[in-house]
């Protein structure tokens, strides 16, 4: 086998119109194969990067103890593996800011960053325990109400990093209960300095979630939730909000839950939970699609080779009569299969990458802001290549082997 022989085979393949349909079928199953491997890998990656590492999966929501002075906060903090305890009222306020312009309404949500939480994506500095008037904003900052609908217009994204060191102002009102309803009372403003940016995907936060210190968030909470001076009416007080208990790692969530229950707290629930059932279904589906694709590749190659070898029986006979050994013929057809598979693979990869780019730009563009992204891994393509070449080679080797059992005269004399 040399390059002239290969060239001859290449000519034989590309000029044979019978190959077109075969290559189309093979391309489809190759795309299914590599596609399912790629999707599976992306999915696992997504779970690893964005779910397992996410703090929200180790935050427990716990009802407080109204009869205790500190509502049971110290008791919760004393439990082993509890990293922090804070009121669930934090992070529930949508507040106006001077980021408002003709495209964005300026709405932001202050968030509390639990103690000892590392921001991996942090650029700039962390908020100290006694700091006030400082903020860490998203890298792709989008101070607008529409973030909740994932309706982000890329051209209006504010580059968070460019704001480091700059100041901004928030405006909010204290609230009071008057004539049986809440009304705005006193207008308050507060100025913050941006000291850092972070990737909001890391916390499953929205693009308008900014971290501020506990002192500042407490101040806002106290202003926004009015104190009730009238014992006759019942309205929700800050103290009525449950606690968020941050566990130090995902593995300890279960044991901490049990301990909290032992301490007679009620309504202990994870604030976010992974649905293992759905995850497993997706993973198994990927595996099933991959296996089906392999089976389809084998089937297509077997059927195709069967037809091809019947069609080319007398050609094989002529090859044998002119001195080709069984090995020569086998190698020739093996190379034909490999060349065809490589052509298929190249077309399949181009189409698959195109498909990924299209999906990425059209479908996943908005999902991108919550961390779902398609990535293409070269290893998947190598695995796909190896599977395609191996399955098609073995299938066609089998067919050639069977064909070469018939004698040369029968081969030459056979007609379609």
């Amino acid at each position, binding site marked *: 086998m*040399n*390059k*002239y*022989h290969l060239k*001859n085979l290449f*000519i*034989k393949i590309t*000029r*044979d119109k019978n190959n077109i349909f075969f290559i189309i079928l093979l391309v489809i199953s190759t795309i299914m194969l590599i596609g399912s491997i790629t999707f599976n890998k992306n999915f696992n990656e997504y779970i690893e990067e964005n779910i397992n590492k996410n703090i929200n999966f180790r935050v427990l929501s716990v009802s407080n103890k109204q009869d205790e002075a500190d509502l049971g906060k110290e008791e919760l903090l004393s439990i082993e593996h509890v990293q922090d305890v804070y009121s669930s009222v934090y992070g529930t306020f949508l507040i106006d800011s001077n980021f408002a312009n003709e495209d964005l309404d300026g709405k932001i949500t202050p968030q509390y960053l639990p103690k000892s939480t590392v921001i991996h994506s942090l650029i700039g500095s962390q908020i100290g325990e006694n700091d006030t008037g400082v903020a860490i904003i998203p890298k792709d900052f989008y101070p607008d109400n529409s973030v909740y609908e994932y309706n982000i217009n890329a051209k209006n994204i504010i580059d968070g990093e460019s704001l480091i060191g700059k100041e901004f102002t928030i405006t909010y009102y204290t609230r009071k209960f008057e004539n049986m309803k809440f009304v705005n009372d006193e207008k308050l403003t507060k100025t913050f300095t941006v000291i850092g940016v972070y990737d909001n995907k890391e916390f499953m936060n929205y693009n308008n979630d900014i971290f501020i210190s506990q002192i500042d968030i407490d101040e806002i909470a106290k202003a926004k939730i009015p104190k009730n001076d009238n014992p006759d009416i019942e309205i929700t007080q800050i103290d009525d909000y449950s606690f968020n208990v941050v566990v130090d790692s995902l593995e300890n969530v279960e044991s901490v839950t049990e301990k909290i229950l032992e301490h007679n707290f009620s309504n202990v629930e994870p604030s976010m939970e992974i649905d293992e059932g759905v995850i497993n279904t997706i993973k198994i589906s990927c595996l099933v699609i991959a296996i089906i694709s392999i089976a389809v590749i084998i089937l297509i190659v077997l059927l195709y080779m069967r037809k091809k070898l019947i069609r*080319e029986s*007398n*050609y094989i*006979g*002529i*090859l*044998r*009569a*002119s*001195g*080709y*050994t*069984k*090995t*020569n013929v086998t190698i020739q057809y093996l190379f034909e299969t490999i060349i065809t598979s490589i052509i298929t693979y190249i077309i399949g990869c181009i189409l698959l990458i195109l498909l990924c780019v299209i999906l990425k730009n059209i479908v996943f563009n908005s999902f991108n802001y919550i961390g779902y992204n398609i990535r293409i891994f070269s290893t998947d393509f190598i695995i796909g290549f190896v599977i395609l070449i191996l399955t098609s080679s073995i299938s066609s080797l089998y067919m050639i082997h069977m064909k070469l059992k018939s*004698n*040369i*005269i029968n081969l*030459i004399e056979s*007609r379609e």
Partner: protein
Amino acid sequence: MEEKSKVIQLKNIQKTFHTKNKEVNVLRNLNAEFYEGNLYAVMGHSGNGKSTLIHILGLIDECDEGEYQIYGKNVKNLKDKDASYMRLKNIGFVFQEFNLVPTLKAYENVMVPMLINKEIQAKERKERAIELLSSVGLKERINHFPKELSGGEQQRVAIARSLANNPNIILADEPTGNLDEKSEREIFTLLKKLAEEGKCVIVVSHSSEIKNYADKVYILDKGKLEGENE
């Protein structure tokens, strides 16, 4: 004829086909010698075993009994690999059906047998294929696909292909069976030319026209080869 060297020696060749309910003794104690530079015609009634003889001579079938030598070398019961090598070096086939690859051009078809011949340099193959096609009068047709050629032209491509590895034995089984008389004469002329160039050419034919070209005419009858006028 005597000074020419002997290419093929057959002694007491026996060939029997066994089918479900009967046995056919096709060749019975067949003896023959074939020399270089001659065109041999093998004639005989249908079913007399002419094709069977060609297959045995061409090492694509085996005889049951007897001796078969090419240039004094025993070639009976060779292993597949050795038989293949013998065919590559010494034997060129021409069949009634042209058996050309429809997706390959004339010269590419002629190149096919050369692709595994290490003695022909890779870059010389195309040149050699074109030379062979020129020698069978198809210089103008080298880039044509089989379907663009007449039957006679296709058979000439097949003859050029049989010459690809420069064998000394050309076995043609009814090469003109599918051709008109004019094409038949062209093919016979061509085969005659090959014999004159020193090859041992054995042609099976039903057409008595071959007698005008043959150096010796054999009749295959009752499993034996007999000279026509003996």
